[in-house]
């Protein structure tokens, strides 16, 4: 320690000097300035003069706030906390949280310092308690607990409330301190009249319930007592919050609170207390209709409020409504609120509708969100819409035809991200697989969506999904439009047998547009397989159709493009088909695809040239008996297949009839409810589409679909 002369003290920099210099120093000189200042502080903090030490402490505090490390000063600061000068002590206690943490070695020294301070006047004691509340760790809490408990009985409310606040931290750090001590505190609080002290006590109960919830019976009487007589909004908010926790542990407590909640709800104008009450009522008091209705009225005010904070909080309360019928009551206000809300509130509303949309409000919800999607939230809205449609295997969808032809094209137009394009693809595949008969509309669907794709030639704009094809190692990039394009092409390909000639003609005309082949190069192989299927279908029905040369030309163009841009080799058969066009080959190929391929088909072997040197009559397997077994089991299966198919058809007809009957019954029941919500739906549906929700279906054409379409034809 050294003593500075009066002359030296003149040249000492005060806190204000350091602050001014720091603000005016450039970034390049900052390091020099900081190093110099720290060196000065290290000297000054050891001075005998308290004013000098105080200024050094404040300058150190300032440097710490600027982002400099001052942990080297831990010992000095702890030393100053035990100083005789109150100014120094206070400064050190305020700065303590910057150097001392729960792992600090210096905390051992702090115990004695604090024990001494607790015996001083109320101002010093209060400052010490504040410091303890910030830096307490397990050892410090255990050693200072008896002193803090003693302070809870102090005559000054300032000391009592701080002591209780520190106690809640001590009990949280080490719950073993609770037994024996908590009962004493509760007894004191029962006689307490000061609102601040009571509020700190309620916070203490909340902290104890986090670590030891089974102690809740100790708090019931005091909480009930306070909630029935208190008028301070701040304390009431804390009481309502702890009541929520008590109700979840002791449901009978709920009955006691109805009267008080009703009174508070009717009397208070404080928005924060109203919010707390509504939150509690929505969550726990659903069975009490009068109280629930009053809360619902105030909730509607929140949802319609100009303040976005209150609207957001209103939506937060709605997440606790467990039924969609409950949400329907607030539907109008929520949808109005959506128009004015910011991005985060819109996400909240979308989440609500994800959970609570049902068949009754499905159409309203879909139409609303399609209309009010904006640039910022569009991708989230589309994601939510797809989720709502697909939820629980299309449980909300009662008219799949309308969904496919009216809503899905609009959703497809609005998709602008790859994730949503992939989700859209999954939606289409699921819908067309689960609803037998919808595939006949695949050409209409494609026309509606793909017409805009032909006009806009921006195939690779936006983020892309990079794919490497497994068998060819060909790399290509897809954006969201191409993903949808590919999926639609595949769907049309799968539905070719169900489509009429006119529809196929339109598809060929669409693909003939040069833009398509140029813009969607990554989908050429999909277009190629679609054309091939259409080619087979047309040749079978009308071999002299004018379309055939157009299709051949298209296939040739694609072949040239593929041959130029990649190492893909078209199969020998495919080449000979285009060049030779023999009817027999086509018939046999058609038969090949008409039924399931057996694992060993000797007829197919004839059409494919075996490589030179390979004897197909010789088995490549060691065990010839195994091959014979497979052959025989397949023959059995082939014989039994028609019988099994017949039985399956009979079963499916029966279940269809039953479904139709239940559907008609449901429609009659829901007609009146649907009227105000949806005047657009025809009262008498023209065609009933049933959604198969029983099991996971394999992708591709369902055998039943083909059989039915054959019967229809």
């Amino acid at each position: 320690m050294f003593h500075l002369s009066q002359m030296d003290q003149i040249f000492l920099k005060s806190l204000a000097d350091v602050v001014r210099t720091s603000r005016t120093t450039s970034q390049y000189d900052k390091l020099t300035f900081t190093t110099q200042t720290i060196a000065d502080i290290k000297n000054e903090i050891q001075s005998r003069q308290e004013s000098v030490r105080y200024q050094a402490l404040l300058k150190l505090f300032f440097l710490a706030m600027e982002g400099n490390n001052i942990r080297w000063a831990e010992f000095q600061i702890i030393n100053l906390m035990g100083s005789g000068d109150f100014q120094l002590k206070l400064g050190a206690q305020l700065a303590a949280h910057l150097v001392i943490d729960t792992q600090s070695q210096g905390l051992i020294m702090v115990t004695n310092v604090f024990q001494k301070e607790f015996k001083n006047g109320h101002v010093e004691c209060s400052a010490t308690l504040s410091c303890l509340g910030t830096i307490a760790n397990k050892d410090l809490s255990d050693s200072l607990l008896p002193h803090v408990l003693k302070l809870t009985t102090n005559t000054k409310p300032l000391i009592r409330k701080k002591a209780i606040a520190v106690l809640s931290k001590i009990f949280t750090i080490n719950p073993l301190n609770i037994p024996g001590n908590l009962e004493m505190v509760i007894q004191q609080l029962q006689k307490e009249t000061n609102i601040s002290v009571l509020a700190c006590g309620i916070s203490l109960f909340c902290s104890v319930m986090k670590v030891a919830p089974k102690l809740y019976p100790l708090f019931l009487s005091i909480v009930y007592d306070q909630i029935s007589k208190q008028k301070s909004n701040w304390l009431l908010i804390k009481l309502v919050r702890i009541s929520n926790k008590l109700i979840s542990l002791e449901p009978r407590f709920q009955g006691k609170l109805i009267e008080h909640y009703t009174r508070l709800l009717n009397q208070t104008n404080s928005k924060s207390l109203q919010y707390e009450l509504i939150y509690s009522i929505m969550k726990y008091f659903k069975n009490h209709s009068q109280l629930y209705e009053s809360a619902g009225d105030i909730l509607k005010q929140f949802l319609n409020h100009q303040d976005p904070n209150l609207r957001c909080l209103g939506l937060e309360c709605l997440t606790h409504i467990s039924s969609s019928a409950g949400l329907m009551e607030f539907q109008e206000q929520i949808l109005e609120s959506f128009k004015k809300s910011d991005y985060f509130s819109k996400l909240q509303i979308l989440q609500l509708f994800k959970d609570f949309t049902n068949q009754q409000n499905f159409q309203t919800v879909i139409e609303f969100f399609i209309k009010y999607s904006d640039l910022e939230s569009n991708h989230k809205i589309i994601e939510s819409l797809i989720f709502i449609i697909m939820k629980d295997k299309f449980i909300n969808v009662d008219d799949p035809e309308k969904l496919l032809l009216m809503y899905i094209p609009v959703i497809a137009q609005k998709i602008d991200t790859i994730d949503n394009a992939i989700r859209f693809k999954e939606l289409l595949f699921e819908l067309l697989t689960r609803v037998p008969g919808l595939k006949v509309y695949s050409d209409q669907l494609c026309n509606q969506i793909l017409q805009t794709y032909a006009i806009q030639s921006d195939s690779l704009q936006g983020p892309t999904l990079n794919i490497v094809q497994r068998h060819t190692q060909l790399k290509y990039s897809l954006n969201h439009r191409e993903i949808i394009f590919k999926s639609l092409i595949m769907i049309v390909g799968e539905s070719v047998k169900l489509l009429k000639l006119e529809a196929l003609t339109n598809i060929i005309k669409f693909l003939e547009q040069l833009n398509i082949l140029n813009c969607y190069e990554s989908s050429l192989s999909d277009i190629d397989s679609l054309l091939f299927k259409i080619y087979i279908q047309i040749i079978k029905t009308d071999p002299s159709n004018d379309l055939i040369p157009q299709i051949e030309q298209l296939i040739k163009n694609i072949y040239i493009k593929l041959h130029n841009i990649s190492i893909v080799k078209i199969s020998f058969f495919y080449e000979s088909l285009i060049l030779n066009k023999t009817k027999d080959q086509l018939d046999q190929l058609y038969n090949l695809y008409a039924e399931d391929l057996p694992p060993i088909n000797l007829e197919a072997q004839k059409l494919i040239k075996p490589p030179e040197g390979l004897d197909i009559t010789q088995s490549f397997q060691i065990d010839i008996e195994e091959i014979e077994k497979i052959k025989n089991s397949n023959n059995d299966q082939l014989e039994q297949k028609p019988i099994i198919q017949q039985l399956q058809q009979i079963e499916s007809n029966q279940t269809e009839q039953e479904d139709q009957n239940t559907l008609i019954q449901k429609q009659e029941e829901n007609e009146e409810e649907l009227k105000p919500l949806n005047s657009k739906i025809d009262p008498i549906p023209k065609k009933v589409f049933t959604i198969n929700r029983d099991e996971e279906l394999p992708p591709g054409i369902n055998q039943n679909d083909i059989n039915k379409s054959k019967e229809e034809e």
Partner: protein
Amino acid sequence: MIRFILLQNRQGKTRLSKWYVYYDDAEKVKLQNEVHRLIVCRDTKHTNFLEFRNYKIIYKRYAGLFFALCVDVSDNELTMLELIHLYVEVLDKYFGNVCELDIVFNFNKAYSIFDEMIVGGEIIETSKQVIINAVKNIELLD
């Protein structure tokens, strides 16, 4: 429970920071930058609260200063907004027409006021008069 309080200006400079939960120095710097980045670009028509990691940030802007509180998810947002407003009112009454420079040059007084309102992350006092009396008692002993 309040986990930390930050007072930052529009440039991201932290004028006051009070931590009621332990974070190491690097984590504190990271949190300050993250919070500033989240709140500085928000419009007036946005809400004053947003989700942040597993907690909530409640903030309010007064002139060039952002007052931000990080609280548990179960805490009442409106109460915290009122707490921020109360703190600003207390500062205004104590300093008389408070500005950012008052906080820069008298940060120790600002921290003292914090300690009279919040202990261990819990609000202990909401009366403006009581808080100012407590701070003036401390000044008398200085």
